[in-house]
C-alpha cells in the first residue's frame, strides 16, 4: 500500500468488499467471500438490466493491484460521481424517489433470483438527476424462505423520515443528521400523529414494528422463531406493501408557512432589475465557463439554471426545503441532468459525521467548486447571523475558485427588514468594507450596478 492509496472512511461495515482510491481514481475491491454473489449479479444480466434502467452505477472490471490482495476476488472501477450528497440534504421528493428506486431495484433483483442485503439511504446518490444505487456489492443470492435482512434499515432510513416529513414536519428530515443509521422507530412512532397508527402501512411498518423492537429488545429469539420462513409470495407482498406505503406519502410546499413566498420570490426586485441581474450573472458565467457551480442560497434555482444551461454541473443549495422541493420537481420534469438541488443552512453547513467523523463528508470536504454564486445571500449571513465580512470572504475562499457575488447595501429594503427589529451593530457593513474584506482574498474582475436597484454584482477570482 503506497502513501497515495486510501481506503475510504465510509467503507468498512460490509465484508463483501470496500472502496479505495489510488492516484485519484476510485476503485472497489470485491472480496473472495462475495465472489459467488458478484458472479451471479453479472451473469444473471441483473447488472445489465439495472444499468440500462439507470438504477445502478456502471463499472468496469480492471486489472489493478487489489488493496488487500489476501481477501481480493476482483477490483472494479465504478463510474465517477460528480457530487456526493446525503439524505439529510435532500428534499421530501428526493428522499421518496431514492426510496422508490431502492424498491424498484429490489423488484429487478428478485426477478433474477437475487435480493438487496442492505437498504441504506447512503447507498443512493443522485447521478445525472436520478437516484442510483452506488454500492455494487449490495446484492446477494435469494434463498426462498428467508425474510428481508434489510427490512429494519429500509424503515429507519426511508419510511420513518418520509412519514415524519409528510405527517409531522418536513424539517424532521434533519433527524437523519443525528441518527446515522436512520430514525429510530420508537422515536418516529412518538412523533407521528396518532391517526397514523390506524393505517395498514405506517400502522404496521412503523408503529407495530417499533413495539416489536421494544418487546424483543432484550430477549434473544428462540431457535424455533429464528427458523421461521417467509414464502416468496409473502416476500413480494411485503415489498408491495412497502412500495405503496412509501408512494402514498406526500408533502406539498404550498400551504406551508413558506406558502406563496416562492411564487413571488423576486417581488422585492422590479422586473427590470431582475432581468438585468440575470443578464449580468449570465455574462459573468459565460466569461468563466465553470465546469462545476455551487449556488449558495439558490432559492428555487432561477440562477442555478443559468449555470446548468451552460453545461455546468450545478448544485443549488437552499435553507428552505420548500424551495429545494420546487427546484427538484421542476428539474425532474425538465429532465435537467446537470442540476442537483440540496437543503443546506450555510450558518451551519453539513458537518463530517459517523465513525471517526469519516463516514459522511462535511460540505467543506466536498469543495472546491469551480464557481460559486452568492446572490442575495450576504445580508442573511452578515446581518441575520452576525458573520463579519472578512470571515465570509474567508469561507467563500475555501469553497471555490470563482465567485459571483451580489452586494446588498443597508439601504436595500430586504436589509431594512432584517434591521427593523434589532439594533444596527453593523458599522462595518458597507460597500468599501465589503470590497476590502473580499479584495484581500479575491481579485475583483468585474463590478456592475444592478439597474433600478441599489445592489451590485461582482465577479471575483480566488487569489
Amino acid at each position: 500500500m503506497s502513501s497515495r492509496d486510501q481506503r475510504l472512511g465510509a467503507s468498512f461495515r460490509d465484508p463483501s468488499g470496500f472502496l479505495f482510491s489510488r492516484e485519484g481514481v476510485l476503485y472497489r475491491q470485491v472480496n473472495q467471500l462475495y465472489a459467488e454473489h458478484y458472479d451471479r449479479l453479472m451473469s444473471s444480466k441483473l447488472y445489465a438490466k439495472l444499468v440500462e434502467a439507470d438504477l445502478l452505477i456502471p463499472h468496469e472490471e480492471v486489472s489493478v493491484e487489489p488493496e488487500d490482495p489476501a481477501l481480493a476476488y476482483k477490483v472494479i472501477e465504478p463510474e465517477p460521481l460528480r457530487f456526493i450528497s446525503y439524505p439529510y440534504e435532500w428534499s421530501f421528493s428526493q428522499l421518496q424517489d431514492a426510496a422508490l428506486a431502492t424498491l424498484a431495484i429490489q423488484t429487478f433483483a428478485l426477478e433474477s433470483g437475487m435480493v438487496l442485503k442492505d437498504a441504506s439511504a447512503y447507498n443512493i446518490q443522485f447521478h445525472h438527476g436520478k437516484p442510483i444505487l452506488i454500492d455494487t456489492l449490495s446484492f446477494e443470492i435469494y434463498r426462498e424462505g428467508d425474510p428481508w435482512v434489510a427490512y429494519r434499515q429500509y424503515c429507519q432510513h426511508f419510511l420513518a423520515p418520509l412519514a415524519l416529513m409528510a405527517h409531522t414536519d418536513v424539517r424532521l428530515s434533519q433527524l437523519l443528521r443525528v441518527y446515522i443509521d436512520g430514525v429510530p422507530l420508537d422515536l418516529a412512532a412518538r412523533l407521528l400523529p396518532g391517526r397514523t397508527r390506524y393505517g395498514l402501512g405506517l400502522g404496521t411498518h412503523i408503529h407495530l414494528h417499533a413495539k416489536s423492537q421494544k418487546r424483543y429488545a432484550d430477549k434473544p429469539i428462540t431457535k424455533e422463531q429464528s427458523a421461521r420462513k417467509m414464502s416468496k409470495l409473502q416476500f413480494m407482498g411485503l415489498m408491495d406493501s412497502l412500495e405503496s406505503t412509501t408512494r402514498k406519502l406526500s408533502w406539498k410546499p404550498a400551504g406551508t408557512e413558506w406558502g406563496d413566498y416562492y411564487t413571488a420570490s423576486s417581488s422585492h426586485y422590479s422586473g427590470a432589475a431582475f432581468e438585468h441581474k440575470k443578464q449580468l450573472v449570465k455574462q459573468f458565467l459565460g466569461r468563466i465557463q465553470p465546469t462545476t457551480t455551487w449556488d449558495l442560497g439558490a432559492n428555487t434555482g432561477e440562477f442555478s439554471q443559468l449555470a446548468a444551461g451552460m453545461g455546468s454541473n450545478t448544485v443549488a443549495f437552499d435553507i428552505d426545503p420548500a424551495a429545494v422541493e420546487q427546484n427538484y420537481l421542476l428539474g425532474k420534469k425538465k429532465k435537467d441532468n446537470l442540476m442537483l438541488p440540496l437543503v443546506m443552512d450555510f450558518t451551519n453547513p453539513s458537518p463530517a459525521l459517523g465513525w471517526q467523523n469519516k463516514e459522511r463528508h462535511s460540505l467543506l470536504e466536498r469543495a472546491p467548486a469551480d464557481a460559486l454564486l452568492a446572490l442575495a445571500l450576504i445580508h442573511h449571513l452578515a446581518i441575520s447571523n452576525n458573520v463579519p465580512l472578512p470571515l465570509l470572504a474567508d469561507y467563500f475562499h475555501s469553497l471555490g475558485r470563482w465567485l459571483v457575488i451580489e452586494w446588498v447595501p443597508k439601504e436595500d429594503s430586504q436589509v431594512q427588514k432584517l434591521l427593523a427589529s434589532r439594533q444596527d451593530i453593523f458599522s462595518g457593513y458597507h460597500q468599501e468594507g465589503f470590497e476590502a474584506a473580499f479584495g484581500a482574498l479575491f481579485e475583483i474582475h468585474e463590478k456592475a450596478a444592478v439597474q433600478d436597484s441599489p445592489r451590485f454584482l461582482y465577479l471575483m477570482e480566488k487569489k
Partner: protein
Amino acid sequence: MHFQLITLFSPLLRPQAYLDPGSGSFLIQLLIAGIVGAGFLIKVYWKKVKGLFVRSESKKEDDNDVQP
C-alpha cells in the same frame, strides 16, 4: 464449513449478511408478510383480470384505427 452448517438452519446467520436484522424487526416482518402476502396474491390476479379487459378494449380501438 461451520458457517455453512449454521446457514442451513437460520436465515439470520449468513456470512455475507453483515446487517443485524434485529429480532423484533425479524419477527414483525414475518407477521406483516403473512398478512400482506395474501392481499398481494389477490392484487396480482385482479390486475391480470383487469389486464385482459384493458387489452381487449385497446385492441378494439386499434381495430377501429385501421378501419377506413
